[in-house]
């Protein structure tokens, strides 16, 4: 029963909450959407924290996403042992990179007085959730080989069933506790997006690539105002 609640009800609650609150906030409280960068207050150790963290986590997340979309292809790719090892080693290396970055970021936030001045409870929550996620992920990768294989074969069907609105717990129930925590925490993370600085990755400015250099805005259209 509790598995039902945690793995087939909670994900929906989390996602719906995330979507609804995000939309409402984006519409009515746009001011809150910011990276809340603290580089201005402390720039040096941010570099060693933020850059490895972001690179590591983006690549790991991309891996999860690709496997979600193309599980068969991943399995086929992994059928050659050398390729499997390559994938696993890369994934683990990136996760460790992210962990190192995250650890530095946490250390920085706790120890720098200026950073402390702009730290709120939500920042601690954010760091805690991320830490749990990365550590549980690394524990899984190390303790339950080969993650890229069984994620594609056993977890993706569950995630897809959620996606198709026909939740099928399948193998989830029998998974070790590390995996369960990893899944649950992922949905906690999603739920927290609109309430924390996580919003920043919803507004990554891809539009910049195609934008003209200069932007001019008018209070009113000059060609019409003259005639009026």
């Amino acid at each position, binding site marked *: 029963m509790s598995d039902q609640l945690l793995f087939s009800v909670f994900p929906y609650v989390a996602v719906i909450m995330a979507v609804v609150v995000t939309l409402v906030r984006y519409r009515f409280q746009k001011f809150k959407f910011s*990276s809340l960068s603290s580089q201005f207050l402390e*720039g040096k150790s941010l570099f060693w924290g933020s850059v490895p963290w972001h690179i590591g986590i983006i690549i790991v997340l991309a891996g999860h996403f690709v496997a979600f979309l193309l599980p068969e292809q991943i399995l086929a790719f992994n059928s050659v042992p050398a390729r499997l090892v390559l994938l696993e080693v890369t994934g683990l290396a990136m996760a460790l990179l992210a962990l190192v970055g995250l650890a530095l970021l946490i250390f920085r936030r706790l120890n720098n007085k200026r950073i402390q001045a702009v730290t709120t409870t939500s920042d601690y929550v954010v760091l805690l959730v991320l830490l749990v996620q990365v550590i549980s992920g690394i524990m899984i990768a190390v303790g339950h080989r080969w993650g890229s294989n069984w994620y594609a074969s056993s977890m993706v069907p569950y995630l897809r069933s959620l996606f198709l609105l026909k939740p099928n717990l399948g193998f989830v129930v029998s998974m070790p506790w590390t995996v369960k925590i990893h899944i649950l925490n992922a949905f906690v993370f999603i739920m927290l997006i609109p309430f924390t600085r996580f919003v920043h990755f919803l507004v*990554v400015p891809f539009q910049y690539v195609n934008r003209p250099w200069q932007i001019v805005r008018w209070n009113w259209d000059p060609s019409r105002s003259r005639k009026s």
Partner: protein
Amino acid sequence: MKVRSQISMVFHLDKCIGCHTCSVACKNLWTDRKGAEYMWWNNVETKPGTGYPFRWEDQNDYNGGWIKKGSRIELKGSSKLQAFKNIFHNPNLPVMDDYYEPWTYKYEDLINSPEQDTQPTARPVSLVTGEYIDIKGGPNWDDDLSGSEEFAKNDPNFDKMSAEEKDGLFNLQRMVMMYLPRICNHCLNPSCLASCPSGAIYKRGEDGIVLINQDACRGWRMCVSACPYKKTFYNWETGKSEKCILCFPRLEVGEVPACMHSCVGRIRYLGVLLYDQDQIENVAHMEEGQLIDGQVNAILNPFDPEVIKAAKESGLADSMIEAAQKSPVYKWVKEWKVALPLHAEYRTLPMLFYVPPLLPIMGNISENGYDNSNHTYFTSIEKSRLPIQYLASLFSCGDEGKVRDVLKKLMAVRIFRREESVGDQSKPWVQKALSEVGLDEKTANAIFKLTSMCTFEERFVIPASHREMAIEMTKMVLEAKGETGFGTSNKPERI
């Protein structure tokens, strides 16, 4: 020809007394808030000096502005793609210590102190951490050449000078200084705008004011590093960037921006310039030596019937054209050509112009002190105390001829006025001085008048902004009654 209007400014540096009234007026009005305490949208620097933030002119360090690569110009700090990498950590971003850590004093300790043998003190506390701090520097720590070993000697404009030349300048007898008040230049080719990945920065079509939309800014802080003048600032509390808004809420109701209104030396002029939008891209790509001429050429003559016709076709209101005709800025910049942009080599086409100061130049030291003997006025420019090279590095991309021409004009006006009021110069000599710099008596008088006898209305010519029309275009006017017209309706809070 696509005619656009821009509210632009001239600062007459000979008149600045370095009182910082402008800075304080601005601070009181706009940046007296948490996260903005360290921001001085208007600041006054002593030159030679390192300025605020520290050595802001050193673009090898800050990488602001544009550079020309081959036939194209690009942002010096980062290409569009690099910007995505720099989002995690912007290598060119100045940090708080490059400005200063804002502080206040524990005044309540003075009042609440128990009776004791010693005087109570109000110790300084940081406005960021709230803890006691040791004040190491402030936004004008280089005022009046104080600490010149640390500040004046490190002026980036001296970087090209030899150590000897530099040391010569700091002989006590030769020491010389000037003030440089700075605000955002509301550039025609703003690099802050070009660098904003979110597209939150925009230039207003009506008056060319460059603004940051606080609701669209995401705190990627690229504008802070891309503005070569360091006139965008990151609010560390709200996580948004902010900059000088040229007091647009005041301008829209016909009031003068606070820094200009309060200026004690009355050094500031504000008015409309019409320019040809089609030329701007071209000008921004010109060779360094042509940048200033190119920019001035793009400014249009508001009396020319052709221009007036084109302006109307481009949709400019009659009131705007009229304001352009009365503009004091037009006179300084285009008619008389005695105002120059600051560091035009950054290629942002700044629309704040400076009349370079004559005073630190003139008092040339001969054996016995100041040399003010007759008929040597132009010579004193040649043998100036403050090397022309220094002024040229500020105001004319290093072209000494350009600055010298301006100074000679100002000097000729002086000689002319001295003859008029004191009568100890000879007429023919005065005429020669005027004709040598291409001025006639009428213009010389006009320059004199606008320099020292100008009225408030002559210094500031603000066009009607026609916000009523702007509202009519979008909604029922009666419904909009009582609306403030600017700002956001939410409290500026972090998430």
